[in-house]
């Protein structure tokens, strides 16, 4: 529960915009780079890797709701 509370607190802090500089639409070139995306933008590799974790470990979640099922756990 403590970790959940910390997550919510961080989210609310960010939502308030405290100390965060507004980034204009034309200033987002760096943020759009492939290196800024999970797995360098390679979605399939990310899915495969996450599925290995799901098969070999007892826990999941946090990576979006659509996952598809399998008889692997």
């Amino acid at each position: 529960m403590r970790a959940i509370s910390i997550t919510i607190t961080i989210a609310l802090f960010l939502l308030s915009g405290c100390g965060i500089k507004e980034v204009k639409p034309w200033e987002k070139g760096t943020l759009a780079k492939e290196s800024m995306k999970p797995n360098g933008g390679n979605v399939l590799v990310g899915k495969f890797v996450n599925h290995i974790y799901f098969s070999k470990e007892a826990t999941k979640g946090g990576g979006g709701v659509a996952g598809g099922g399998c008889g692997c756990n």
Partner: protein
Amino acid sequence: MMKFIITSLLVSTLLFGYQKGDMVSPTISKKLDLKNDKIYIIDFFASWCGSCKEEMPLLIKASQEMDKSKFELIGVDVDEELAKGEAFQKELNISFRVVNDPKNKIIKAFDPLGMPSLYVIKEGKVVDFLFGAKDNIDKLIADELKELSK
């Protein structure tokens, strides 16, 4: 009191960029080489902007189809790395005039809410704008210019 109101209005204009009815500053007008006898469509784009790339073929088409004696489409490339911007323009075979804005001085003056963005300028004044990619942008531009020519 009047001085305060005028200052506030000026400051608010600086903060929020050009709105409809605003005059484009002489500095920006010079950078874009705008003349009063034409209606201009200014298109802000960048190599990293996927929607800009999607829309570009239709903008090139719109530019080729418009009456160049009355209208002109000008691209403003806001890539901070000039070489990347020029390579992108070459890749897309952009045939209309492009002004490179690596220091983002032009786009800061307009301060659009999204990318890509289009501004329509008539007689030095902003008369319309559009933020974000749109389907059939060539038709939207043709209709806009037809309306403005009346």
